């Protein structure tokens, strides 16, 4: 109990609360602007956390992640263009509500649903992560290596539309993480005599390059043109029908159902917020007595999508904190930030740094509260922000990416950043999952360490594996998942061919 209180008191300092607040505002702003998104914001923000204490840094990044959950709905509802992919299902009923002059009500429904879903999933995380980590503590290197393998196979299969390409991306990510000095023998690997490569390719260059600048390159190359917010829709944000207590009571069962769906999906690595949004929406439509109203401005549709996609955010931390495996790419970037600040997430964190864990939980709850409060004032402001054209935003974000890498690393890493951005661009174009690549890259050192230790323990005896039943089960699971997902992809391909 003392540890919990100490952790919470560490979090409740003015500077930490201000950093969480700053993160939330940045997350809301980036997510509201179509074409940028909160993921890009988190990635770019990582190098700037070098100036902060670990709790403030994590609070800041978590704040961006949380802010993004409500910001993404703004352009989805007002312009029929989701600010981030996970808000896609919010357009189905959000935009029709705007057209009916109910933009104010839709935005507020999205806001309350997001914050409720996110807060409930944080509570699940707080109660589930510690017991899960106790189970995970009993796992040795062979089990850990097997768990990472299962996670990579699942992520490769579920993200993107080609299992093979997903696996190639995962192994490319793992391979990229090997550049630099070998952690156990101190041997140089693929440094080509360049001293700057001795520390490997930094997470900032790889993350910002592949995730942020790669996407921005795509937008510049294809000159993404977005619809403009018309005056009538903009005005209905202020003067339209208000959101009432009765509305909240109407959507509460939908929020709770979607939160359950989103939390379960978030706890499984790889599925992500977009799928949760769609599944939440579909479940709400099925459960409704008037399913025909969905797609025509039904408030429950907005609530279902927003609660489901937001509840993924907290649940993504369940595998991260209990196993050290990120549930999605935002969690992978936050894992990178953990490592930069000298913290290795995983089951041992609960026994080695319990105070930090409870500080982390506290900043999450602070973030939920601030997201609720700030959203009351910022949603209307973002209706004006989304009018800023991309021709202004994107060039500024490019310079911000380059500056972030120079500040965190060096000018040499800025060259690596451009190389990684080109890789990110082609991964997007050719459907090689950049999500799997980054997760492979972040998990690489952990996977190699667990694999190396398992090999040493086995001492060259392949039958050793059979002495580790849990590892056997996980490897078997990896094979089963691989085969079933391959079949699923094949069936989907055939179905598409038949449809054509």
């Amino acid at each position, binding site marked *: 109990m003392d540890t919990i209180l100490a952790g919470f008191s560490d979090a409740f300092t003015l500077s930490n609360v201000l950093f969480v607040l700053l993160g939330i505002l940045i997350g809301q702003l980036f997510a509201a602007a179509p074409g940028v998104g909160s993921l890009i914001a988190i990635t770019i923000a990582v190098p700037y956390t070098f100036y902060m204490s670990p709790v403030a840094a994590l609070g800041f990044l978590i704040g961006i992640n949380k802010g993004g959950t409500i910001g993404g709905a703004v352009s989805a509802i007002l312009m029929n263009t989701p600010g981030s992919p996970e808000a896609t299902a919010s357009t189905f009923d959000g935009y029709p509500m705007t057209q009916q002059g109910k933009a104010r009500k839709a935005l507020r429904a999205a806001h309350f649903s997001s914050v409720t879903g996110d807060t409930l999933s944080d509570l699940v995380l707080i109660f589930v992560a510690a017991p899960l980590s106790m189970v995970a503590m009993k796992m040795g290197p062979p089990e850990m290596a097997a768990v990472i393998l299962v996670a990579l196979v699942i992520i490769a299969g579920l993200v993107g539309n080609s299992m*093979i390409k997903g696996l190639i991306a995962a192994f490319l990510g793992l391979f990229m993480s090997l550049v630099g000095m070998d952690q156990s*023998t101190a041997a140089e690997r*693929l440094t080509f005599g360049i001293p700057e490569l001795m520390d490997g390719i930094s997470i900032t260059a790889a993350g910002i390059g592949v995730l942020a600048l790669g996407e921005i*390159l795509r937008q*510049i190359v294809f000159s993404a043109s977005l619809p403009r917010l018309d005056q009538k829709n903009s005005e209905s944000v202020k003067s339209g029908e208000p959101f009432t207590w009765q509305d909240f009571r109407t959507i509460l069962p939908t929020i709770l159902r979607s939160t359950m769906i989103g939390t379960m999906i978030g706890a499984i690595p790889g599925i992500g917020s977009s799928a949760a949004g769609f599944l939440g929406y579909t479940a709400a439509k099925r459960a409704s007595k008037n399913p025909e109203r969905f797609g025509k401005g039904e408030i429950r549709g907005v609530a279902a999508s927003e609660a489901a996609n937001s509840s993924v955010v907290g649940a993504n931390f369940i595998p991260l904190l209990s196993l050290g495996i990120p549930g999605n790419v935002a969690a992978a970037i936050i894992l990178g930030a953990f490592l930069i600040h000298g913290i290795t997430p995983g089951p041992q964190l609960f026994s080695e740094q319990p105070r930090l864990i409870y500080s982390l939980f506290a900043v999450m709850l602070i973030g939920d509260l601030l997201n609720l409060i700030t959203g009351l004032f910022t949603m209307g402001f973002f209706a004006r922000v989304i009018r800023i054209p991309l021709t202004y935003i994107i060039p500024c974000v*490019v*310079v911000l990416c380059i500056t972030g890498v120079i500040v965190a690393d060096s000018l040499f890493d800025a060259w690596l950043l451009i190389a990684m951005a080109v890789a990110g661009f082609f991964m997007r174009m050719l459907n090689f999952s950049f999500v799997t690549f980054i997760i492979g890259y972040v998990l690489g050192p952990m996977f190699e360490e667990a694999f190396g230790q398992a090999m040493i323990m086995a001492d060259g005896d392949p039958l050793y594996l059979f002495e580790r039943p849990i590892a056997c089960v996980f490897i078997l699971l990896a094979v089963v998942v691989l085969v079933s997902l391959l079949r699923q992809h094949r069936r989907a391909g055939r179905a598409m061919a038949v449809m054509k």
Partner: protein
Amino acid sequence: MNARIVDLSAGVLVTLAGLFTLFYLIPQHISPSLGFGLSPRAFPYLCAAAITVLGVVLVVVSARDRALAERPAPVSRAALTRLVVVLAVLVLVLALMQWVGFLAAASVAVALLMLLMGERRWLPIVLTSLGWSLFLWVLFDRVLGTPLP
């Protein structure tokens, strides 16, 4: 060009890169076993072997997938040309940063990218490029004391 040719080419490229890594990069650029622990080459070999095998699988799968042949290629020549232009701007900006410093190079970057994205009014270009670069320079170089080039 169609999506099948693009996927086939990607598969061939991945396979060749995997073979190059297996037979040249790892033997030439990673030290052999030091006699203790796992060899520094072991995990790279494992990854490179997996990439090579998966590259071959991608070639086979793409060659057999007839539906792919009916889809257009995901990247056109015009898009690639535009990519080269954007990359040239980024390379120029990084080179400029070494010669003339952050402030001037960042201003040039914002201005050129705004032009590339279709902005033609000089006043917004000048104000945005100078204002944003100056803001970042003051924040990092002056306030936070992180020297920028």
